[in-house]
């Protein structure tokens, strides 16, 4: 069994039009920039994207939106240093937006991966974000029922990876990546370094290979923050 793929282009080749795609990262940290760019090259359209943010500058998720490929975005915080691509698309009505509180977003994704179709949270009770959602009282306190969130594909960024798909992450670049890996039918990881099987201590594996379908080594991956400081544009 070897889940490694040679190129980012091959790794994303099967993603169809209309797919729901989770994309890891919090701002630029942990964003799988090379996989996103490969998806731009690949051409799939009418995507629903799940990400904490809405892209920054003109690379990564912002570039995918700029190319008109995202019909709908599910996120918690569509702001950044330069959110102009998303703002323009949103104001022109080219992209739909579902705002989800950040912890609820993370938990809905984990629930998708963990086979929990719904759960209750105190978050957003009494706010417009919870309008229309079932409310239940437990021990005198009101909670909102939230539903799981699953995806056809997750694009994630790891640090080390082995041929079975075991992964580690790098510092705060971990963020949404491990839970998204659980919640997608097909999880595609880019890793900074492929190591031989056994090259990751069993105690240090963060995402066990069962959650990963394909992985590709992208040595020295781009850091979105640095691309933006250099005013990079993709493609």
């Amino acid at each position, binding site marked *: 069994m070897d889940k490694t793929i040679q190129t980012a282009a091959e790794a994303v080749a099967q993603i169809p039009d209309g797919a729901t795609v989770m994309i890891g990262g919090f701002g630029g940290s942990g964003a799988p920039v090379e996989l996103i760019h490969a998806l731009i090259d690949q051409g799939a359209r009418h995507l629903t994207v799940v990400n904490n943010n809405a892209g920054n500058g003109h690379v990564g998720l912002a570039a995918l939106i700029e190319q008109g490929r995202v019909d709908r975005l599910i996120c918690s915080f569509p702001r950044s240093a330069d959110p102009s691509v998303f703002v323009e698309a949103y104001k022109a009505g080219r992209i739909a937006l579902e705002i989800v509180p950040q912890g609820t977003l993370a938990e809905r994704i984990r629930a998708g991966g963990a086979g929990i179709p719904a759960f209750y949270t105190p978050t957003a009770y009494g706010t417009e974000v919870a309008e229309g959602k079932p409310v239940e009282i437990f021990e005198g306190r009101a909670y909102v029922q939230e539903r799981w969130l699953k995806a056809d594909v997750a694009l994630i960024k790891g640090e080390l990876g082995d041929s079975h798909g075991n992964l580690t992450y790098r510092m705060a670049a971990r963020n949404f990546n491990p839970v998204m890996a659980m919640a997608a039918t097909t999880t595609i990881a880019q890793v900074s370094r492929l190591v031989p*099987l056994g090259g990751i201590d069993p105690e240090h594996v963060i995402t*066990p290979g069962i959650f990963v379908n394909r992985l590709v080594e992208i040595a020295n991956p781009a850091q979105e923050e640095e691309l933006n400081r250099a005013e990079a544009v993709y493609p």
Partner: protein
Amino acid sequence: MIDISQIKLSNAQIAWRAAQDIEDGAYVNLGIGFPEMVAQFQPEGKQAIFHTENGVLDFGKAPEPGNEDWDLINAGKKAITLKPGTSFFHHADSFAMVRGGHLDVAILGAYQIAQNGDLANWSTGKGGIPAVGGAMDLVQSARRIAVVTDHVTKKGDPKLVESCTMPLTGVGCVTRIYTSLAVVDVAEGRFVLREKIPAIPMDDLQSLTGAQLHTDGAVNDLVCPAELA
């Protein structure tokens, strides 16, 4: 009626047959006891990755006696070993793998299996102390739920039945049954016979089965390595 004690498959042969269906690269959970034996017969060239619900994925065989580390055990509390690719995780993550549908196959034992796929394997319902473990989680969530079992109870009663009389482990969950006499699928609320051992006449097999055995295409011979008998 033929005396099945002379012709029925051994547990090792049942386990061998179940192992033949495990796909290359499959993630597999084996129930405590008899089902654990399946791991010994994974065919050459097809790699299965084993999950144990106490938080280990991709582990190796039992250690030599005397080399046990009791912090490295499977769900049956038997010692296992590390191998390249092993990972550890906590119980909630382990059952996220289970409940989230990430396992390809779970193989369990059974007291009774109903033709609609209901499984009873956790309590005889006769008092005693109930103990469910992870079975109820596994049977509702793995992509394929296979059972390995004698075809009949020690008393000779059918284990494949119209509906279970013992407390259920899960409803409509079993997809394939490997017995000491046959391989039977559960499909659309019916038992569909796929294979039977050549030595048993069809009528006898039916009379040892508590619900109608249907066929859907050929019934193949169930032949297992004789050295496992």
